[in-house]
């Protein structure tokens, strides 16, 4: 079937594809253009090149297992997706999360937000020719990801924030790593401001380009930094505070005219606020108390002893369980059953522990929320990340739907580039922060 663009195109104008295999389309978007020379008469976006059936897959996975798929939605800030899903499930299950886990979650969200904004602006600036900015921001992102890697064990596919809490406590040396990340990011933000804020090439490509009015932004369902760039201060963290955001002080930066420059500037100022939040949260998190119980048994020795009699005393664990020892769990994971994975010490040494482990992971058992439907959203890097889950009382969701913020943002692209020049697509599209993983699901 002909597309609308082909049907409506004038015979003398030129039809051309931009993407999906185009370096500036981030690999997953096709824009069909009707051109008169350099001028865009009409445009049509085609999405779905990264569609992998996220929602269908989730219907066939247990509530615990599908967490890993949420990492792959917005792959620049996976921890916020984990958080959105975990908090939706907590609302459905009616469980509360320990204070320390909430603080760690805020820490991780804000780190992810910084990494999201850094990536977006780095790519946008690079596509406008500012390669230095790209390298600087990637450097800062590495420091941010160092903290995430130290804590979660992975840079992108973290699966760190779990239903009921977080997987593990913070590592012993997290403060030093966080301080470095904050210091380096501050410096990079200062450098990038110096490079871009008054740069006439950058201003020429962003000031007054891709402007959207407040009314249109609302009508398109925009949220997050893109909506705030039009001057509407809607932030889920302020409007519907979750975790401990109501106890922290931060500002919601807004723009004026909703053009590319405002989207850039809102993101820059938001990163400053995120760094402020990181410092506040770091001060609120107490140092973890040392685990009591003295020196523990080697796991092999503990297993041997448990064959004769019920093992007593702590077990030395392999390094990949660091931070999720039984003694740490009460601080970082809800005690409601069965929400969190049972402690490994029990699983490996006692029969009851092994049974509760199997009961958690066996098909048809595990987390089974009551019947009902629930919507919950958190403030992601791009805007409101919402999950809508329908439960039928089994261990798998009957329906899981993601409200992807950039779906709504990209749907406005056609309107924003119509009547502009081809070159204006690049910064406009760049400032939207299209993330294929959550756009196409």
């Amino acid at each position, binding site marked *: 079937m002909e597309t609308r663009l082909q049907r409506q195109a004038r015979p003398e104008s030129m039809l051309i594809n931009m993407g999906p295999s185009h370096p500036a389309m981030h690999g997953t978007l096709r824009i069909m253009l009707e051109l008169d020379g350099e001028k865009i008469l009409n445009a049509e976006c085609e999405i779905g090149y990264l569609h992998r059936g996220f929602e*269908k897959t989730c219907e066939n996975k247990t509530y615990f297992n599908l967490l890993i798929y949420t990492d792959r939605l917005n792959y620049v800030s996976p921890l916020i997706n984990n958080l959105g899903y975990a908090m939706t499930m907590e609302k459905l299950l009616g469980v509360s999360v320990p204070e320390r886990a909430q603080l760690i979650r805020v820490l991780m969200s804000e780190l992810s937000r910084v990494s999201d904004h850094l990536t977006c602006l780095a790519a946008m600036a690079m596509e406008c020719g500012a390669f230095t900015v790209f390298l600087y921001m990637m450097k800062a992102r590495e420091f941010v990801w160092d903290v995430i890697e130290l804590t979660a064990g992975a840079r992108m596919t973290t699966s760190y924030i779990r239903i009921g809490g977080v997987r593990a406590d913070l590592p012993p040396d997290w403060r030093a790593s966080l301080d470095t990340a904050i210091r380096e990011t501050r410096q990079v933000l200062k450098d990038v401001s110096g490079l871009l804020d008054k740069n006439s090439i950058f201003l020429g490509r962003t000031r007054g380009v891709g402007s959207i009015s407040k009314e249109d932004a609302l009508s398109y369902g925009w949220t997050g930094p893109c909506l705030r760039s039009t001057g509407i201060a809607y932030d889920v963290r302020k409007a519907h505070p979750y975790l401990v955001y109501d106890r922290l002080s931060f500002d919601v930066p807004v723009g004026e005219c909703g053009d590319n420059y405002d989207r850039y500037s809102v993101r820059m100022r938001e990163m400053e606020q995120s760094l402020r939040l990181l410092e506040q949260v770091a001060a609120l998190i107490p140092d973890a108390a040392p685990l009591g119980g003295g020196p523990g048994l080697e796991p092999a020795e503990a297993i041997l002893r448990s064959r004769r009699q019920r093992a007593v005393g702590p077990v030395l664990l392999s390094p990949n369980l660091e931070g999720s020892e039984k003694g740490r769990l009460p601080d970082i994971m809800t005690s409601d059953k069965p929400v969190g994975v049972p402690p490994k010490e029990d699983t490996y040494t006692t029969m009851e522990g092994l049974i509760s482990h199997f009961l958690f992971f066996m098909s048809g058992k595990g987390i089974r929320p009551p019947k009902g439907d629930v919507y919950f959203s958190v403030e992601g890097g791009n805007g409101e990340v919402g999950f809508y889950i329908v439960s039928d009382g089994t261990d798998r969701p009957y329906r899981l739907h993601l409200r992807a913020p950039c779906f709504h943002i990209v749907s406005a692209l056609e309107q924003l580039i119509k009547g502009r020049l081809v070159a204006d697509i690049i910064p406009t599209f760049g400032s939207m922060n299209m993330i294929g993983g959550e756009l*196409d699901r």
Partner: protein
Amino acid sequence: MGQETLIDEIRTKLGAAVESVSESCGDRVVTIRPQALRPAMAALREAPFDFAILLDMTCVDFSEPAGRFELVYHLYSISRNVRLRLKASVAAADPAVETLVGLWKNADWLEREVFDMFGVRFDGHPYLRRLLTYEGFEGHPLRKSYPWRLAQPRIRLKDKD
């Protein structure tokens, strides 16, 4: 301003369009008669409700055994700082409902996605075409009758005609 006040206001304003009001996990859910969906949504968008953002729209397949699809809308009002969930049930045999294009601009893509994934027809939609899958895709993947991991036939290359 409590949820109850809002629900009362909605009941007064929309009258017979409201089928029922229920609750789930602390959120009030308003079920609208599908015939009255568009006028009801148009009323909610204007003052005094001021639901300027269509946050989300999706569909749930209850065709077995209830024989219906449930359209789920989430609206958000900035001035009232309140989210509202609305539902409308359509028959699974021939699912169709009036479009919301013209009220909110993102309804265009949202409805195309629901059409693509569930085969719900939106009467009056100017360009009802598959969004995430492609032209020639067989079936509607998020229907419960569509098997998980079903392989689609290969599409023929265009120049091999």
